[in-house]
Every structure is written in structure tokens, then in C-alpha cells.
């Protein structure tokens, strides 16, 4: 499902001294079945942008098209609930939303809200638990007995249980160990291919952007300042640093090599590409020496 923004602005607490414009006339499209990464400095409006994807916030002006449903300032809340089944949001530190007395009930909470019977919901809960690679015997335990990483998985399972078409992830791997991070990102990439999901990922991990995203949106002060493929966005290292953003470690390494006289056709994004490029350089040098 594609999501289109047309001239979307959002103002927090309008007409008070605390008024703050978080989004300024944003126009963009998140394509169907794409993996879009949203990057930007803290306070650039990413979270506000995210909440528009699920109509949790309605634009102060402009239109958001979620699928073919148009959301404007005047859209009433009545019609939004069913929309929310189609868009799942995993908020930052989603383990904070756990509340039920068993893991099973917590995962089943979403499906039940959208009309699944308790039996159906329990079955979905079981499937989802397997999906996020947790053992089945924790189904009847309290979510508060689990470790932080396990709680995170249960919370994510609770969102996946809605079986959404669009999955919005707000820093899903923040605070996880490197292995947990990798597994989690792998899971999302796998899901996207299998279920034909559209994924929107907010992250500060540029490696994840380089590895998984096919589209990058860069935000600053409530505006989109650049969008395109990861290769296009990461090409200008200086510009990104100006925006207080990073590039993947491999790109950074290549950038430093370039300063010392090595030539790259285009800066590599991943370790594999970097290794290939360097191997090519050695080959070329070997040929010259022959």
C-alpha cells in the first residue's frame, strides 16, 4: 500500500505560546512494497511524520493519502480505526506498551480489537511468537518477567499480529545488543519479501539503511531536504556531515581513502562493496606491474 503526502504541514499547540511547526509542506510518496528509511537529526520531525502514516495525527493542512483513503484536517476519527489495521507501527521502545497478564493475551490484544475471535487471536499469537523466534512456552508467562530483548520481541509480535500491509518501525533496534539488532533487521527484511510489506524505518544506524533500504528520506527542521536511493543520498559525505548525519562506516572508510588519492567510481555502501572495490584496485595495480 502506497502512502502519499501532499503539502502536509503539522503544527503542535497552535495559537498558544508553545506553538511549534513540526512539518512544513511535505510532499512525498512511500511506494508500495518499498523499504523506505527515514533519517534526520533529533527533532527534525521524523516522529511527527510517522504518526501521520497511521493517521494518529491529522495534518493541520494538506492531505495524506493512505492507500486510497484521504486524511485531511477534517477527517473524522470514526473511519480511522479500520485504516489502522492496515498500518502497523512499532514505536520506540515498544516494550513499554505491554500490559496484559500473559504474553499470549498481549499479542492477541490487537487482533481482538479488530474483531478476531479469541480462538483465532490465540492462534495468531502462537504464530507470531514463532515468527519473532521466541519459544512457545513463554505464551502463558507474564510479559514483565521477560528480559528486555524478549519483551521487545513480544511487543513487535503484538504489532505484526495485526497483519498490516505497511509496517512502520521507529528505531526498532535501539538499545539492543549487536546480535539482537542483526536478527531483528533480518526478520523485517525477510517479512517484507514474504508478505510483500511496505516498510518505513526510522533509524540512526546508517549500516541498516545501506543494507536494507531502497529509498531514503532525509529530514531537517520539518522539511524533506533530500530523497532518493541510498547510493544517491550517501554520495555527498560532506553534505550529510553538515546535517549532523553519518554515513555507513564503509562509505566513510572509502571517503578517507579517496582523500589520500584512491579513486572510486562511486562510494561503496557496504563492506562487501568496499572489499570488491579494493580487490579491483589491487588487481589493476597487479596488471600495471606485470
Amino acid at each position: 500500500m502506497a502512502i502519499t503526502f501532499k503539502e502536509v504541514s503539522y503544527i503542535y499547540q497552535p495559537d498558544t505560546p508553545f506553538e511549534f511547526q513540526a512539518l512544513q509542506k511535505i510532499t512525498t510518496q512511500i511506494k508500495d512494497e518499498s523499504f523506505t528509511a527515514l533519517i534526520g537529526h533529533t527533532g527534525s520531525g521524523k516522529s511527527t511524520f510517522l504518526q501521520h502514516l497511521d493517521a494518529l495525527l491529522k495534518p493541520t493542512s494538506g492531505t495524506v493519502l493512505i492507500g486510497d483513503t484521504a486524511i485531511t484536517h477534517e477527517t473524522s476519527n470514526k473511519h480511522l480505526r479500520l485504516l489502522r489495521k492496515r498500518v502497523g507501527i512499532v514505536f520506540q521502545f515498544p516494550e513499554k506498551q505491554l500490559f496484559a497478564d500473559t504474553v499470549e493475551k498481549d499479542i492477541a490484544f490487537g487482533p481482538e480489537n479488530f474483531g478476531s475471535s479469541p480462538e483465532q487471536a490465540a492462534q495468531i499469537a502462537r504464530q507470531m511468537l514463532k515468527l519473532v523466534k521466541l519459544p512457545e512456552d513463554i505464551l502463558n508467562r507474564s510479559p514483565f518477567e521477560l528480559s528486555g530483548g524478549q519483551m521487545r520481541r513480544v511487543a513487535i509480535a503484538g504489532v505484526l499480529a495485526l497483519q498490516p500491509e505497511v509496517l512502520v518501525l521507529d528505531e526498532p533496534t535501539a538499545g539492543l545488543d549487536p546480535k539482537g539488532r542483526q536478527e531483528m533487521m533480518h526478520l523485517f527484511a525477510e517479512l517484507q519479501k514474504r508478505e510483500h510489506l511496505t516498510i518505513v524505518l526510522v533509524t540512526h544506524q546508517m549500516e541498516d539503511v545501506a543494507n536494507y533500504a531502497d529509498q531514503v528520506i532525509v529530514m531537517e527542521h520539518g522539511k524533506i531536504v533530500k530523497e532518493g536511493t541510498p547510493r544517491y543520498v550517501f554520495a555527498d559525505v560532506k553534505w550529510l556531515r553538515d546535517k549532523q548525519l553519518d554515513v555507513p562506516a564503509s562509505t566513510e572508510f572509502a571517503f578517507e581513502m579517496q582523500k589520500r588519492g584512491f579513486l572510486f567510481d562511486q562510494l561503496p555502501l557496504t563492506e562487501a562493496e568496499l572489499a570488491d572495490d579494493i580487490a579491483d584496485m589491487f588487481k589493476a595495480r597487479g596488471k600495471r606491474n606485470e
Partner: protein
Amino acid sequence: MNKLLFGRYIPQESFVHRMDPRAKLVLSFLYVIIIFFANNWWIYALMAIVALLSIWASKIKPKLFVEGVMPLIWIIVFTMVIQIFFGTGGQMYWHWGIFSITSLGILNAAYIFVRFTLIILISTLLTLSTSPIQLSDAIESLLRPLTKLHFPVYEVALMLSIALRFVPTLMDETETIMNAQRARGVDFGTGNLFTRIKKIIPILIPLFVSAFNRAEDLATAMEARGYQGGNGRTKYRLLKWGIRDSIATLVYLLMAVIVLAIRFL
């Protein structure tokens, strides 16, 4: 929730903002007590002038004060209506059963309106011009004499300042949790009383759990930084009585004396 202005602090540079919070707190109390002695229009006029003067000295937009009164307007109107219909004494205009409208009833209703408005104005001024942390410092300082009676002043002040510090954090968290549950299909605006109460559980439980966790983390962090209780601690923020506070106190005392003189002489 966001519209509510009462109890918010607006940082600014002004005469009132730079006053000692203790002075502001005590003078606000004095004002509220004195206004209950008011019984004629001269007194009300005088007190209104003092209130407006204080508002002017705070440099905060008057519009904000009007917005501060607005949420409470129905309480004021309700009290006035009761006064008008049940008031007795003076000339009778209208009578039906237990209801009657009299000249004195109308006068009292008008007094109540002015009284309410002035009290709200002054307390809004206090909260708009004083940060919560200053207020809790002021309360601690003013309660200090109670330590003689073994009242745990320091502990109360500590709890107060921690509580105030975490109000916005908890509000943010409530909003995030609400959003997360809305995204999972909870519709907070609909249903009868019983279903609505049931819908609060998915917010309340995570909120309590996170408050417990936060309390534990905070306690650990405080201990790790050498906190051992109130005895023998020094203070970083010192309250200082300045010339502004003396001027303001003089003005308010003068007002109090005049009001009491008109009232009792």
C-alpha cells in the same frame, strides 16, 4: 490536555519573573485571603488595580490570562446562578417556590464573579511567572520552621520537586502509550462508561510499570551519586530576597491595610 494553560510556566524576563518565589507565593496567599474581606466596590476596584498592576509588571500577554480564566468560566457561572436564584435579602424582584431573585442576591453574584476572576488571575500569574522548581524551593523554605515539630520538610520538598520534574515526562509517556494502543486498534473516544473504563487499563498498567522502573532507576542513580538523605546537604539554588520583593510586599501590605481599614472602620 494541551490547551490547558493553568499551571504552566512561561519563561521571560520581567519584574515579576525575577522576584523571589517565596515572596510571590506568600503575596498570592495574602491576596486570596484579603479578597474574602472585600464587601464593596471600592475595595474590589483597589484589588483589581493591584492585580492588573502585577500582571502588567510580568510582561505576559493579557490574552493568556483570559485563556486561563476560560476553562473555569462554567464553575463561575454555575456559582453565580445559584447565588442569583437562592440569594435572599434586599428588594424582591421575582419569586417562585424556593427560588427568588433579589437585589442582594444579584449583588452577591456580581461580587462572586469578581472574586473568582481576581483569584484566578493572581494564581495564574503565580504559575505563569514561576517555574515549578522555584515553587518547590519556596515551599521548602517556607515550611522550614516545621522541622522543629519533626515534620519531614526536606523529604516532602524532595518528593515535590521530583514529582514536578516528572509530570511532563509522564505526560509524554502517556501520549506515546496511548498512540501505541490506538495503533493496535483501541478507540478511546467511543463506548459507554464501562467499556471506556476498560480501555484505560492498557494505558494505566504500562504507565505504572514504567513509573516503578523509573523510581528504581532514579533511586539507584541517586545513591550512586552519594545521596544519603537531607542532613548535611548544601543547596545549589539559593533564594535571595531582593529590592523587588520588598517593593511588591509593600504594595500588597498597603493594599491589605486599606482593605481592612475600609472593611472594619
